[in-house]
């Protein structure tokens, strides 16, 4: 069976989102926006995993049902880890704001050597 959209299209969208996330993490100073950029990167990887799950097995002789399911399971666990990470990360941001009354990442230099 052939799809009219090539695998490269989905990979290009994923790559685009991942690069935007990386650039955002480097250039932004607001930790909430940095967290959003991390979510952007995680979602880009999810899209890539699903694209490979559908256009599947690069390994010769692998069971297509198993490989398609492996990609989807990976996406589920990435979502679970992302949810836990956001809950803890935003809790940390709130704690820092209560302590120092600023959340600018360049002002947080307590752990500088």
């Amino acid at each position, binding site marked *: *069976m*052939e799809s*009219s*959209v*090539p*695998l*490269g*299209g989905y*990979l*290009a*969208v994923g*790559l*685009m*989102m991942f*690069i*935007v*996330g*990386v*650039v*955002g993490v*480097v*250039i932004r100073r*607001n930790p*909430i*926006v940095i967290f*959003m*950029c991390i*979510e*952007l990167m995680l*979602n880009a990887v999810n899209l890539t995993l*699903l694209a490979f*799950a*559908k*256009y599947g097995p690069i390994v010769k002789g692998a069971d297509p*049902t198993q490989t398609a*399911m492996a990609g*989807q399971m990976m*996406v*589920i*666990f990435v*979502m*679970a*880890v*992302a*949810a*836990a*990470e*956001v*809950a*803890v990360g*935003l*809790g940390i*941001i*709130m*704690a820092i704001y209560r302590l120092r*009354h*600023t*959340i*600018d990442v*360049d002002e947080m230099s307590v752990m500088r050597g």
Partner: protein
Amino acid sequence: MPEWVDGKTILFAMLAGLAGATAIGVVAFGNAVRSALCLVLNFFTLALLYFTLDAEMLGVTQVIVYTGAIMVLFLFVIMLLNLGSPAALEERPDYIKKALGFMFGGALFGVVASQVVRPFIETKQVFAPDNYGAPQGMGKALFTTYVWPFEMASILLVIGIVGSILLAKRRV
């Protein structure tokens, strides 16, 4: 019109363009609320892209978990910080950092696009079975082959809940 242009490719191109534009919006907007709303739109577009990949179950999960739960958490924290002082969310421009960020992003884009994306640009053969994204198959796999990571994920989520409550509560 070339023969590869059909309904599916047009739909994919529209969704891809929207996903890219909203992703750029997340980084480009100076206001954190606008970034968050762009991210909501981006996650929704991604759910539609999952549907075009025949992964219906994960598309629905994406809408519920990301646009439903995680983005509400983001907007809630932005609201809490804004109540204290609106100045806490403003940023000063830093041109050296911006230049370095764009250079690094461009370099990464060049490497990955030429080494990873280019070999798959013509791959159109679908190997996955027709109903691979259906809830029945996923539930079966989740409770048989992947039951150990599934239980680990539940423990991780419990630890996350307890940890965020500990971090967010005031000293008593």
